[in-house]
């Protein structure tokens, strides 16, 4: 078992999930409640990583992080280093790649909140922030947890994007899925099996959490 890869993967998944809560909640609120006609364009952009091959996303991110793009040059100017083949680059790639897995359950949850409750809150003087923070988010919290758990699990299992953007640098960008690939390449099946089994168990437990929440085990009673 490669503990270094395990810790790196856990760090990557935790950081990605945390960023996705901060980024994903406002995006999901906007997608759930905005009445803009061009909203479908934004929805499609958010959903792109689901249909796009990971290597395609990884390739474009690698290009964007490089010194040929203005983004890459700006980052290099600001920090003195490049995002490609670094842990930071891996985090950015993971956030983008897992965005739909966090946002889609959240949007579904927010849309499921009874609009009358929001109307009642408005008549009681509540602005958007109070409605979202005190009505929508508490009522849709199982969807929030689902979004976070799915994005965590998805980040843990990433392979294509990680390999494209991060390469395979031990302790910096070598995650568990890359480690399994390395071990299989080296015909070290026993070690690959232990790592794969660990990932399998973690993924199963995470999915159990999601489905338990979807059964509304912990939901507020409504009548």
């Amino acid at each position: 078992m490669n503990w270094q890869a395990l810790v790196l993967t856990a760090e990557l998944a935790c950081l990605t999930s945390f960023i996705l809560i901060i980024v994903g909640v406002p995006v999901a609120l906007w997608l759930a409640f905005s009445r803009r006609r061009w909203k479908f364009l934004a929805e499609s952009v958010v959903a792109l990583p689901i249909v796009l091959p990971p290597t395609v996303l990884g390739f474009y991110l690698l290009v964007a992080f490089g010194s040929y793009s203005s983004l890459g040059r700006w980052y290099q100017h600001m920090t003195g280093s490049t995002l490609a083949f670094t842990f930071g680059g891996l985090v950015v790639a993971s956030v983008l790649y897992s965005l739909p897995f966090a946002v889609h359950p959240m949007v579904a949850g927010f849309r499921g909140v009874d609009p009358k409750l929001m109307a009642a809150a408005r008549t009681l003087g509540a602005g958007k922030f109070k409605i979202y923070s005190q009505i929508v988010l508490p009522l849709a919290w199982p969807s929030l947890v689902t979004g976070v758990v799915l994005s965590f699990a998805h980040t843990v299992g990433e392979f294509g994007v990680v390999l494209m953007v991060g390469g395979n640098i031990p302790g910096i960008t070598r995650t568990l899925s890359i480690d399994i690939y390395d071990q299989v390449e080296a015909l070290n099946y026993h070690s690959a099996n232990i790592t794969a089994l660990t990932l399998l168990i973690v993924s199963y437990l995470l999915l159990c959490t999601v489905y338990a929440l979807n059964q509304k085990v912990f939901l507020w009673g409504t009548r």
Partner: protein
Amino acid sequence: MSINIRIRRTIAATRHQRFCLDVDFSCPAGVTVIFGPSGSGKTTILQCIAGLVAPDSGAISVVGEDFYDSASRVNVPAQHRRVGYVFQDLALFPHMTAAQNIGFGIRVNGMQKRAMVRDALEKFRITPVAYHRPAEISGGERQRVALARALVIQPRLLLLDEPFSALDDELKQGIIRDLKQWLNENGVPALFVTHHRGEALALGDRVLLLKEGKIVGEGGVQEAIVNWQSQIACA
């Protein structure tokens, strides 16, 4: 005290059928009942006054404040109108206790807020269920929580959208008695939407009869309801 309502709005009665809500009326002090069959536009009037939907044109002013005026493009957002609204299905926040529901709209914090909530709980006789969620209390208690929540913000106007329809007569009469007492004490005018004759007679002072988006009659509650009922029965 003046409440002037002039609303024009196209309403989709069914997928293929539309009609125009076109009303122009004033409300004196007391409770004005909007009486009429389902789908006549009663709820839309309340939603326009509360700011939850916008009329196509018209003007709404409540106690000297213009809430909406299509001519001068005034449209005060719902959260700034200070209008109490009791929804047909009450729309209590299911994750909050009765006390939290009542305190939601109070703009002050700390001791003063707690005192206001306590007063409202006592006035509407729901102190024993203060820390229960809506799913854990009876229909009558939920009704009282919804009324207390709408009234504790000291509204300029109270809007009641058939809030008693799910209650039995005994419970209904007790709640209507308490509500009437509160309205008289505080001098808050109310618009009460119903198609139930008994409720209109019990709570109302004046009645507007609405039919397919038009006011087809108005008057004192007693004679109006009796006359219209017999007219409708004859027709």
